[in-house]
């Protein structure tokens, strides 16, 4: 990254993190860009909102349903039924997908009806919403696979992981304006590819090829499900 890029990043960082003049509000809601509405067209705003909603809704459903089912022992019933662990966890992933898609469609409808935004590629948007929800939901299923009996036990560490991902995924700061280290981290976040793919579908352009985004989202789904199955096997072996 050159000097110009570094300066831009410093500006962006200070905008994000500096409190307002009264110093009473925390950084994010207080971001000057957000306050002034600079560069935040309805189209961009809806894109950001959809990405965030998909990410948080889908990745929250897994821990909630798995841990509640563990507590009511209905998960034991499923775990001793003739179903493979992968099949069972994929089913739980689909539950998260349904929730996330239903919630994420709300800002889209508002965007279309109220702000008259144009969706560049509707078919791609539908596909991307479903694929993103699946990979985020699988991430949530992985969180829910830790042998906890209270939702809070899992939600706190999962939040610690999810918030940093949100910051490096190009939602608040465009990827091309991030420092190199942040851009490297952004590549391990499924949200980076989901957000980029949603941007492609809505605006027709993105930071990286849409094909790459669309190919990597299922890869994340498989990776997270694999990790969740491994974790359940470990729990089964060690008997936590």
């Amino acid at each position, binding site marked *: 990254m050159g000097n110009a890029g570094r300066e831009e990043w410093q500006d962006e960082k200070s905008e994000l993190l500096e409190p307002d003049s009264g110093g009473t509000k925390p950084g994010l809601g207080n971001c000057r860009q957000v306050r002034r509405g600079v560069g935040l067209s309805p189209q961009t705003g809806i894109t950001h909102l959809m990405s965030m909603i998909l990410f948080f809704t889908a990745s929250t459903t897994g821990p909630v349903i798995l841990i509640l089912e563990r507590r009511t*022992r209905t998960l*034991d*019933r499923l775990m*001793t039924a003739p*179903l493979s662990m992968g099949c069972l966890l994929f089913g739980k992933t689909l539950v998260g997908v349904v929730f996330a898609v239903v919630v994420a469609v709300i800002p889209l409808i508002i965007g279309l009806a109220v702000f008259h935004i144009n969706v560049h590629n509707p078919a791609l948007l539908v596909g991307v919403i479903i694929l993103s929800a699946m990979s985020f939901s699988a991430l949530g299923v992985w969180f829910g696979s830790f042998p906890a009996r209270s939702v809070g036990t899992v939600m706190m560490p999962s939040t610690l992981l999810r918030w940093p991902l949100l910051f490096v995924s190009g939602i608040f700061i465009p990827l091309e304006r991030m420092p190199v280290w942040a851009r490297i981290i952004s590549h391990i976040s499924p949200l980076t590819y989901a957000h980029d793919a949603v941007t492609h579908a809505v605006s027709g352009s993105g930071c990286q090829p849409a094909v790459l985004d669309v190919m990597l989202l299922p890869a994340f789904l498989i990776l997270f499900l694999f990790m969740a199955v491994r974790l359940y096997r470990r729990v*089964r*072996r*060690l008997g936590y």
Partner: protein
Amino acid sequence: MSPEGSPAIEARGLTKRYGKLLAVDSIDFDISDGEIFGFLGPNGAGKTTTVMMLTTFLEPTAGTIRIHGHDLPRESLEARALMGIVPEESNIYTELTAEGNLRFAGKVYRMPRKARKQRARELLEIFGLSDRAHVKAQEFSRGMRRRLTVAMALIHNPKILFLDEPIAGLDVQSARYIKTLVRDLNESGVTVFLTTHQIEVASELCHRVAIIDHGRIATIGTPDELKTSIESVQTVAVTFDAPEGDGIPSLAGLPGVNHEVKSGNGRRLYTDSPADVIPAVVNFSREHGLRIIGLNTLGPSLEDVFLKITGQEVGSVTASSEGEGKRGGKRGKGGMAG
């Protein structure tokens, strides 16, 4: 398909270690097809861990398990299809109706839609839940939830039924209902693996019983065989026509009495020679102006066997320490609860 003539359950060298704790220590047993097998043990003896391994919920640290010839965990899906599992806590979906729960259970076992609908109705009828078929399970009493849990375990006509404390906390009517059902199921060819700490239930229902203690099978056999193994222990049960609070003196000092245990409004006198104890009890009642309304000689109960095997001396709890309960024993192991 399971190989012909193979035992319903076969466990060899079954071991489970949780870190440094050896919960189950290389146990072996076979359970024949069509048997009701009772699995008893005090708290922390390794009962639950063993059942969890048999039902594929946990992987053993060492040893092998075969369910109708299917090796675990390699063929766990095939083995699970043959099992019905009733855990200690009823695990029904409270937001679903009774019929909804049954149909969902059928779906999990990949039963065709028509078959699961028919079987659900059949089970609702058998379990006396037909009139509540469309009521959400959250409105069910404990007994009804229990019945529904058992019904869900039977939806796919399993060959082996694992029952964990099937009648714990149930009223007399529901308990009798479940016991009758277990017998009926067994008559229809279902193998039953019963885990309980209610020894009288095991004694009443089981063809064979295993007692596990400190992770090892302490003994295994029919209830009669186990009782015979400690036949030296006999008791004289006497009941007086007086409330226990009326200050009936202790009978522990009578000739031939080894131990005395309060039992309801009577006493159980442990002895090696009932013939010596009976006349002494009769004399005692005359001397104290008490009327005997019941006098029986009894062989050892399965509970006595359990206490003896788990290191709690039979009849060791005397009338004076009744507050600790008959199951307390010398080692204060907390009996068989849980």
